[in-house]
């Protein structure tokens, strides 16, 4: 670092709030599409894998392989193909969510005890009613846990997108620019903001989990 560089230049921050805000918005844009698409795909795959038990292994394998590919490699490889746009980021970000979501969604569905399903069937629920009114609500805790994990991971991975040097980098862009220009304020801002975003999302989902499952909180202590 050139001597004399301030660790955190407050005045610069205040002067560039619009730039910072743009990056934050971009970050949301980077993560929202992969998460939504990932949830939909994983939900469908999960319901399918629970019905057709044999499907679980192959799907886990494929999503696992996709997950293993280091994110930078995936971004770098796709860039020449899909160009400099959100799509380049969205595709790998989506595939990275698949393993997490699929595993958690299937775990959610299989966590529903068999006797409850049998009771529901015996009492006259149709297949669809059973899925929507019994299985889904009871799978929710693990489903939310999966979405939580996927969101947080995606927020983190989205910061890497920027190293490709495009203009859609979100908070990661602040980091890379800060590094390349030896400007700590910038990269610290980018880093800390992305941490806040990720940890904040995590806590939000924990809150959401608790809200949606009042029955889990009401343990035998209330007797």
């Amino acid at each position, binding site marked *: 670092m050139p001597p004399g560089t301030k660790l955190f230049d407050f005045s610069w921050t205040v002067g560039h709030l619009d730039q910072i805000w743009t990056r934050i918005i971009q970050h949301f844009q980077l993560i929202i599409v992969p998460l939504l698409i990932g949830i939909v795909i994983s939900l469908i795959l999960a319901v399918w894998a629970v019905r057709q038990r044999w499907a679980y292994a192959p799907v886990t394998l494929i999503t696992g392989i996709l997950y293993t590919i280091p994110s930078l490699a995936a971004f770098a490889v796709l860039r020449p193909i899909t160009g400099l746009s959100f799509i380049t980021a969205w595709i790998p970000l989506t595939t990275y969510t698949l393993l997490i979501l699929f595993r958690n969604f299937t775990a959610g569905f299989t966590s529903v005890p068999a006797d409850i399903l049998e009771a529901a069937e015996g009492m*006259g629920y149709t297949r669809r009613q059973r899925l929507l009114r019994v299985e889904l609500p009871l799978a929710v805790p693990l489903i939310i846990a999966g979405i939580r994990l996927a969101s947080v991971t995606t927020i983190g991975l989205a910061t890497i997108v920027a190293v490709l040097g495009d203009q859609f980098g979100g908070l990661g862009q602040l980091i890379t620019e800060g590094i390349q220009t030896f400007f700590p304020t910038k990269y610290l801002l980018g880093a800390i903001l992305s941490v806040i975003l990720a940890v904040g999302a995590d806590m939000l989902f924990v809150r959401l989990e608790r809200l949606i499952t009042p029955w889990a909180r009401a343990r035998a202590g209330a007797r």
Partner: protein
Amino acid sequence: MAVQSHQAAVVEFDHVTKHYDTPTGRRKGGPTPGAVNDLSMTVPAGKICVLVGPSGCGKTTSLKMVNRLIEPTSGQIKIDGVDAATRELTELRRSIGYVIQQIGLFPHQTIGENVATVPRLLGWPKPRQRERSEELLAIVGLDPAKYRDRFPSQLSGGERQRVGVARALAADPPIMLMDEPFGAVDPIVRDRLQNEFLRLQEQIAKTIMFVTHDIDEAIKMGDLVAVFQTGGHLAQFGPPLEILAAPASEFVARFVGQDRGLKRLSLLRVSDVAMQAPVVARVGEPTADARQRASAAPNGYVLIVDGANRPLGWAAPDDLSGGDGVSAEMANPVSPLVNKRTTLKDALSMMLDADVQTGIVVDRTQSVLGLVTIEAVARKMREGEHSPAFDDLALLAAEEEEDADGVPVRADAGAADQAALEGA
């Protein structure tokens, strides 16, 4: 509180068979566990029919074929004359109450919502759902105000079992299917639940099919008992007393247990045996008369009673001495007192405890009606008794067999059972 209940249906099994097409089954060429073989029986409306038998005998399979959780391979199950297979599936199931051992309460719904499950599926208006829910909770002994808004995880096992029954009754179904409903609780709670359920049935009089592996529960709960044996065959179908008194085969006899005689005694009451007339001596009577009567009495004693004919105790001729007349102090109160509703099992037990031959039967005012003797009870036990066709003596001989070295060889009980199961 009276429950409004109007319906009970007749359930008829007509040559119902269930085969599972598994590799094991095909290879062995025989029936697979859980299979059912040519089951034909009719459960009359408003009665409890208990299906009982060892594991894998097809009792649960038979039960589940009524609400078509399992479909029969052949044969028909008719409800009020209508083949269940022709009815629309979910409509059929919503008209049958279903209780399973683990109950399967929905953890994410309140107790009230759980109970109202079928009414909700049937589209009842919300207020009526709630009303019915509360009504049923009260019936099964749970205070609606307290329990309605709780979650299943907050209840004990016994409480959850009651909610399970309430839930099954919610839509007032004509049939209830119960698969080991009281199995998951401890014996004390189970006894209480059984008694309460029997009382409930007196009010609602539904047709109930009840699966258990416990023969004592079957005898206690059932108006009719269907004994199944491994392979899905119906070994015997009839009222509990008949099963106990006249087992149709070795298998049934063994399944019911060696103590079936005693089991019968718990179903019979003092009113079922002939009472003896006692030889009495009233307080205040001249002792000479009493002594004379005592010496002439069949057992050598007189029963001393008071002015209201209440028994005070026994007296031998030697106790009846002195010139002042029979008095209470001469009485030896050894015999237990029973009434006409006392079960023979309890009466016998009391007599054995007191080490006497005779029990005194009294009425509600405690005055003597007669005597019941151990001998009379034993005679009743033998009455109508039927042993299935096997050679007592041969079995005894086999059990006493000695091997070459003169050491007694015990008959292999397991092999005998196996033989009974396969042969009967």
